């Protein structure tokens, strides 16, 4: 039988036809990913439809992300606070305390992040005020100052009677705690711990915001060695504090909603944060022979993050440098502060000399970049010159270290406040007391950690 030339070519053509579709392309991968995603959403929708009505869905998410149920704002109005809120005289001068606290109260009152706002004056015990009444007190001065209020007693009241899930208490005070006598000074920490622990709240968290203000009035030092009161004080600024007290989750959300842009200093105790979004960046200030060790790194899927460094060659002469991008936007400004990060970011690894060589923030250039670095607010550059023979974990950890300002704002003797400056008596002891309740001292949890893997290239 005579075969046509075409039929003789057929096997060859078939072979070509079989080979060509075998080629991979990114479009294939993308559309594959798109298909599976679409399929998932269809499945998910099909699974949900009979179970939950459309209204039920958002309510489930509001518990975690919706507004807080309640905030109780407490303003201490004892005599020692008068200098912050002097009665308006003819000169109509006001203090920075008045400006800041009036603004803060207004922000709280206006905020959509909290459903119910209640305001209290603290004398010997909290007295309910309306927003207007408290705002007037701040602006026009304290009418009937309370003799003195003890910080532990206030804290005890707040955690015992005003502590609810999804609600916070905000206490504005100078936090000058004068123990009964000099012999009681070493027990300040214990007093605070006991007060906060009175109700045995397991998820208690405290955020402390420190501010300073000019002060026009009588100053009542905690150490009365020189004088019981310093009249017409002060030439120096005096610190005052805003403490946010409540369950860890509520404190975190209140901080984020209302105190994100708080000026001044801050410290946080017992507040838990979720790990920030992060990724290694393979084309941003990278150096040396390394690449993403993830199996699907070649797909370069949109929004994918990478945490494995595969190193093909490394030595002292040819160091490997890689940059970890992190988005710390959801964290308090303290943990976004480069100074704090540089001092407290740690790298732990095994069999390697990897170390952090630089911590830097996003610049206009990185933000405008078309690369993945545009998504990150902070960058950690790590250098390696030697490493283990197999994959080893490497962790970037922000340790929960107390910020420096607390020690700097602490004085052991405030009897001569004009010389001492803007410091608070035994502040670090107060803070020690807070930390003892909110943190497990044996096993201190870090603020966040980013686990990486350092492995030799295969």
């Amino acid at each position, binding site marked *: 039988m005579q075969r046509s030339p075409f039929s003789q070519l057929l096997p060859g053509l078939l072979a070509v036809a079989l080979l060509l579709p075998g080629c*991979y392309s990114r479009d294939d991968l993308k559309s594959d990913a798109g298909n599976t995603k679409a399929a998932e959403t269809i499945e998910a929708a099909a699974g949900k439809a009979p179970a939950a009505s459309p209204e039920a869905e958002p309510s489930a998410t509001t518990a975690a992300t919706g507004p807080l149920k309640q905030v109780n704002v407490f303003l201490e109005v004892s005599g020692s606070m008068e200098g912050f809120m002097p009665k308006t005289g003819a000169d109509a001068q006001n203090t920075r305390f008045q400006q800041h606290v009036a603004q803060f109260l207004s922000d709280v009152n206006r905020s959509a992040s909290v459903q119910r706002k209640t305001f209290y004056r603290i004398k010997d015990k909290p007295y309910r005020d309306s927003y207007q009444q408290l705002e007037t007190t701040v602006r026009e001065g304290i009418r009937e100052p309370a003799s003195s209020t003890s910080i532990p007693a206030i804290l005890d009241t707040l955690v015992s009677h005003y502590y609810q899930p999804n609600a916070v208490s905000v206490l504005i005070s100078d936090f000058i705690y004068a123990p009964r006598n000099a012999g009681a000074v070493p027990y300040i920490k214990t007093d605070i711990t006991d007060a906060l622990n009175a109700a045995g709240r397991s998820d208690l968290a405290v955020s402390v915001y420190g501010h300073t203000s000019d002060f026009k009035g009588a100053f009542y030092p905690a150490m009365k060695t020189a004088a019981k009161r310093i009249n017409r004080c002060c030439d120096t600024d005096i610190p005052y504090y805003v403490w946010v007290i409540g369950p860890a989750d509520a404190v975190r959300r209140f901080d984020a909603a209302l105190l994100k842009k708080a000026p001044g200093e801050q410290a946080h105790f017992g507040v838990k944060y979720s790990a920030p979004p992060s990724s290694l960046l393979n084309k941003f200030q990278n150096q040396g022979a*390394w*690449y*993403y060790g993830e199996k699907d790194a070649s797909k370069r899927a949109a929004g994918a993050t990478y945490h494995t460094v595969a190193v*093909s060659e490394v030595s002292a002469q040819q160091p490997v440098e890689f940059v970890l991008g992190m988005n710390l936007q959801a964290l308090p400004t303290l943990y976004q502060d480069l100074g704090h990060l540089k001092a407290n970011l740690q790298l732990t690894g095994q069999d390697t000399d990897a170390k952090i060589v630089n911590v830097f923030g996003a610049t206009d250039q990185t933000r405008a970049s078309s690369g993945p670095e545009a998504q990150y607010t902070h960058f950690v550059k790590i250098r390696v010159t030697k490493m283990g023979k197999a994959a080893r974990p490497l962790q970037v950890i922000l340790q929960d270290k107390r910020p420096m300002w607390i020690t700097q704002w602490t004085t052991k003797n405030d009897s001569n406040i004009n010389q001492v400056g803007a410091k608070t008596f035994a502040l670090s002891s107060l803070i020690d007391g807070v930390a003892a309740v909110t943190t497990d001292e044996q096993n201190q949890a870090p603020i966040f950690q980013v686990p990486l893997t350092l492995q030799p290239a295969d």
Partner: protein
Amino acid sequence: MQSFFRFLYELIGTPQPPADTPVYRQIVFPNIGLLNLGISLALVLIFYYVINKAMGVATFNKLRHWTLFLVLNALIAFIVVVWQAKAQQVTDHSYIYWLATLNAVYGLLFYFLFSVILRKGSTNASTTPF
């Protein structure tokens, strides 16, 4: 498959810049390798079975004609790499051209091997190139 092409193409060293290594190993190498094999085979088939058998052309079976296809194949192999590098958005680097040159050399090799295997079935060119 991937490891075979990886072996083939990493004879001139690992991909540069190193950050693009996963893309080269998992996408670019298999793509250019398969295309190179496929195109070499196609050109051999066209030379021996289309021109010198089915079409019955009697004046295109000399060594110089075979060489023309050989060079054409090498050129295509070179261009395929440059095109793949662009398509996969790897970082511009002289490595792309080294890889393209290597692929052209493999193109010559594949074309020669396919010729040796398949030339016997051709009517007019069964003794080309030798």
